[in-house]
């Protein structure tokens, strides 16, 4: 494990007092660093919406994000079990978990994952969400990695709840709702771009994300401008080939965060 990256990550996950704090960027740091630090291929994160629904708020890759969505849609899977029980849930071999999760287990395998570990985002009796760690090869996550993963989730949880009490009690909810709406805008933009260029949704997302990165724009701002018609996405690169669900990041780097890898 990269000790320096680990310390930097803990600093990042406690640094919620910055003026431009963004809850979704913050949670993307948690999923991305989990993939970089732990023996996992992808990470996804569900957070409880004030409406009482769980929502997918961050993922290290599109494949992980879709799998989180699938858990919500099929109302089944390790992240949901973990959230409901407030306890870690794991399966070292998804091929043998078809009875436990008859819909989720095959879907996860189809997405290229063989094992999963879900960790609660919990402070005392308050569970605010769950972090899912996916592995491409079967086998339980090493105990040391489980401890570090849980420590990262704990620090993030405390930071968010601290954020809520220290700044404005409503800031977290405001930001979460704004971010969830941004996610919807990105889906709408994906649809528009996919239809225009004859792409599938993954290709459309990759193209949008790369365009935003190359121009140093926030993905959600670009998506909004594209849907509104004020951004035409001219000079788009040719459609990127489909990528494997591995260590690709699914978002813009947080401003000021250390470069990746």
């Amino acid at each position, binding site marked *: 494990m990269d000790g320096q990256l680990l310390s930097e990550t803990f600093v990042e996950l406690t640094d919620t007092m910055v003026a431009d704090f963004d809850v979704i960027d913050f949670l993307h740091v948690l999923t991305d660093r989990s993939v970089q630090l732990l023996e996992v291929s992808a990470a996804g994160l569900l957070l409880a*919406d*004030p*409406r*009482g*629904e769980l*929502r997918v708020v961050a993922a290290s890759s599109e494949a992980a994000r879709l799998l989180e*969505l699938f858990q*919500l*849609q099929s109302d089944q899977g390790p992240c949901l079990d973990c959230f409901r029980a407030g306890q870690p849930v794991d399966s070292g071999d998804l091929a043998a978990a078809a009875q436990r999760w008859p819909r989720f287990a095959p879907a996860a395998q189809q997405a290229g994952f063989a094992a999963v570990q879900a960790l609660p985002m919990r402070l005392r009796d308050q569970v605010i969400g769950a972090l899912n760690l996916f592995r491409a090869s079967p086998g339980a996550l090493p105990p040391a990695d489980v401890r570090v993963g849980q420590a990262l989730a704990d620090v993030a949880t405390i930071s968010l709840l601290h954020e809520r009490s220290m700044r*404005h*009690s*409503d800031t977290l*909810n*405001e*930001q*979460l*709702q*704004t*971010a969830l*709406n*941004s996610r*919807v*805008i990105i*889906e*709408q*933009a*994906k*649809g*528009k*771009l*996919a*239809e*225009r260029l004859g792409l599938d*949704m993954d290709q459309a997302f990759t193209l949008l994300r790369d365009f935003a990165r190359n121009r140093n724009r926030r993905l959600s701002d670009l*998506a*909004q401008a594209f*849907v*509104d*018609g004020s951004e035409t996405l001219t000079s788009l690169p040719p459609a990127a080939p489909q990528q494997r669900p591995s260590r690709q990041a699914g978002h813009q780097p947080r401003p000021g965060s250390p470069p990746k890898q």
Partner: protein
Amino acid sequence: MAWPFFGLLAMQPGRILPRGSFLLGARMTGSRPGRIWGLVAGQAASRGGRVSAADVCTAAVTAVEVSGAWLSAARGTDGGHLMRVTDEVSEELAELQLTLGEGPSPDACACGGPVLASNLGDMEAGRRWPVFAPAARQAGAAAIFAFPLRIGAIRAGVMGLYRARPGPLSAAHLGDALTFADTATLLLLDSQDRAAGDPAAGPGPGGQPADLTLHRAEIDQATGMLTEQLGVGITEAFIRLRAYAYAHDRRLADLARDIVARRVRLHPDPDPSHDGIA
């Protein structure tokens, strides 16, 4: 509170509950959207009218335990058209914000998320809205909660709630308020559909609230695809998507999945019945 709701269903079963609506399913039990829809439909039934966004305001005041509510509908770029207020204070608050262009409602419209100002007398509110905050307190509000009526890039308007006493919304009240806002969004979009005067659209999707929080990535993607297929803006695309689902008696999520999978394609034809399977 559920009984007026069921009374209304008995009167207009086809209109309120198309086949496959989530209200018929297991989610009805204990489902927040189902409960909130029941409160709104009950409010409409008690005044003897069809369900409208105005009923959302009235029902929200009671359920969220606030002093009053206002709702303005987005109309192009003219900055908002006041639709409904529940009392004089709400009216003054809504008009102040329209006039000043300052306050929680304009901020909620600009940022796309709710603005929860639980104490208009605190420093943050004073710094953020130097003119509006004192004026709002003068008018009788101590806390204001503004909810943009949006589905991604679709802007339907804004809903505001105020309280005469300061203090944040509880988690349960916030969840209810967000769900009232979701419901108001759909009802406003339905009324735009009817206002467009397209007789083929009939009563529109009838005001049944699609479950906005689950299964929705495909609905959002399909809406984006329709902007290209139909050559329309995102709001119109969503209205057409729902009208098509209603006209063909299909669940919105199922139709969206077919559009994303390119099994169904809509055509830029004013008559939805001409749209067909790809």
